[in-house]
């Protein structure tokens, strides 16, 4: 299924491919941390209060807030 969306909309266990970013400032930081276009991302789990979330990307676990996750566009 080709549904474009963002990382914040993913559910635990889902895997998607990063396509780009909607926030220039945060994208630079995210890319440095290994969130690159074309790289697969796995949504692991959310914090008990629903925010922040934990994803696997580029071989390690990264936590980020939902508002930041929402700037990462994906295709799955």
């Amino acid at each position, binding site marked *: 299924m080709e549904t474009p969306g963002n990382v914040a909309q993913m559910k635990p266990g889902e895997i998607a491919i990063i396509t780009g970013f909607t926030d*220039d*400032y*945060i*994208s*630079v*930081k*995210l*890319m*440095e*941390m*290994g969130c*690159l*276009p074309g790289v697969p991302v796995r949504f*692991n*789990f959310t*914090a*008990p*209060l*629903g*925010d*922040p979330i*934990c994803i696997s990307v*580029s*071989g*390690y*676990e*990264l*936590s*980020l*807030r939902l508002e*930041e996750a929402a700037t990462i566009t994906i295709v799955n």
Partner: protein
Amino acid sequence: MSERKRPKIALLGNPNSGKSSLFNRLTGLNQKIGNFPGVTVDKKSGFCLLPSGVTAEIVDLPGIYSIYPRSLDEQIVAEVLLDHRGADSPDKIVVIADATNLKRGLLLLTQIIDIGLPTILALNMMDLVAKAGISYDLKKLSARLGVQVVPINARNGVGIDELKRVLSQPFAPAEKNTFNVWDEAKAPVRELREKLSVDNDYEAYQFLEQPNSLRFLSKSDRETVDHIRNAYNFFPGKFQGAETIQRYSVIQDLLNDVILKAADLSWKNTTSRLDRFLTHKVWGYVSFFAILFLIFQAIFAWATLPMDFIDSGFANFSSYLKSVLPEGPLTSLLAEGIIPGIGGIIIFVPQIAILFAFISVLEESGYMARVVFLMDKVMRKFGLNGKSVVPLMSGVACAIPAIMATRTIDNWKERTITIFVTPLMSCSARLPIFTILIALIVPNETALGFFNLQGLALMGLYLLGFLAAIGSAYIMKLLIRVKERSFLIMELPTYRIPKWSNVGYTIVEKTKAFVLEAGKVILAISIILWVLASYGPGDKLENAREYVLQDAANQRLTEQALEDRIAAFRLENSYAGIIGKAIEPVIKPLGYDWKIGIALITSFAAREVFVGTIATIYSIGSVGEEDEVTIKSRLREEINPETGGPRYTPAVGLSLLIFYTFAMQCMSTLAIVYRETKGWKWPLLQLTYMTGLAYLSAFIVYQVLR
């Protein structure tokens, strides 16, 4: 420059890459904390004897993910790397990378290589690499990067000797470049290199990219850079994302070549199983609060014994000095000013050591990142950060180690707010004041069958302190405006067993920092307070005995009672007493008289002194502070001459309780805030705010209740 220059070796790497383990390995206990000139970032350095017989200075730079700074800490690293002519410019750089996650480490490495300083790569965690089933072709990696690669395991020391051997040999900067400056940037870079002495294109490119990291340049040089930037319409940050993408694509190609066998991720199973529990809706919080409770208990209970020991040790030493040295102002200064002053510093060492033992274990094990993960959403609402939880909770034991623990918060605003509000949490030094005053005004009865009223009152005061802290944080969140955007993009590291020697180094480092830095301020203020309490105008202090004897001529006093009277008389007529009387009009609306005024003055430095001063001023000094019953009954008897009723009415008692809940009254805290914020602005603001809040609240309470 008669001294022979020691080679400077800088350690660089991602957070969690094992940089501090390597630093401790190389330098041992031979470490010191200094400052980078003019900024608020600590510079950790130490010395290491290399096999060539040369002693090198090892500088541990803050952990970074890239050369582009996001925080002040990171900006320091950028400046050290860009300023090739400066005093802090390293002769050699060791980039340490986590071999289980090489991709991100190589991003930083390629940037460092491109900037043109002699660099080697220390590939850490080779034990885990073996466990994860990864296999690298290190020769090829070295050849492709153009730098030497040394596999190490900083935890058990494997490979450290080889690293030292490599470091003792001269090596040149790598000749390869990973990143080529964009066509559009080539012209300004060329012009910059013509006008300024810059070693290579990428360094020049960074000059254009990082206008804020160029404070080492002279004003005219900076203007030249600005001029070139404007002339070519060069927008800093415009190509940064593209640069990252280009680097990563080179790195990916390289990794495809050098990875002989990729990881199977089963070695991370323990971590994901632990995470399922430790970040669980229920068990996550249960385990977190259990850990907090343990820390709190430890600081409260385990520290008591050594603290009592230190307390009595210094008291005995003081009286010993008094007994052997000739009587005089110098002896008195030593025995009543300096020794108790030093004692007042050392007494916090057990609490600081215990708290940092725990914090270091939490950091080392990887759990701290989960604390942030659990608490971030709640804390963010109040302008705080997930990492603020530990300082706030530790503040219940003692604000000093708690404030030192805010170092882990990267965001300047969130860290400042945490430092600012932590002293509002009711610390253990408030407890003796609380217990005495509560016993005085709250009946020892039970309500609803099992709630002890005094216990409820005590809990209420702790809650009040917590609410004041959270509320103040919220107000500060609205007041402080900074450009720095708050974000949380944080690695959740794999769980590991803490390395105990690293825990030990952290304890030593933090304790040393407190004793040396805060100690200076505390000692100075102790001496000032000693002068105020020991000297007074006229002959009243010198001839206190005659005055009291004259006064009490027709009373039959025991020797002890007479001594107590004399002590009270001396305090009343000292400068502290005079100030106490002078501030009486100010504190009268709170329901206090000059006697309480004196206690406010003397406990300005340390709130726990309140009880002792009250004991002295009511001439019961010799019964000892532990004898709360005596103090209590004496306070109960104290008559307010204006009303003829008791001095300590519920209104006065509650007003005092509220005052001590909010007031700063702790110079050790002020000293540590000064150290942590590197200036007097925040400690003074804090003192004013807390005293103001205390005064206003106590005023309202007294005026409403009386």
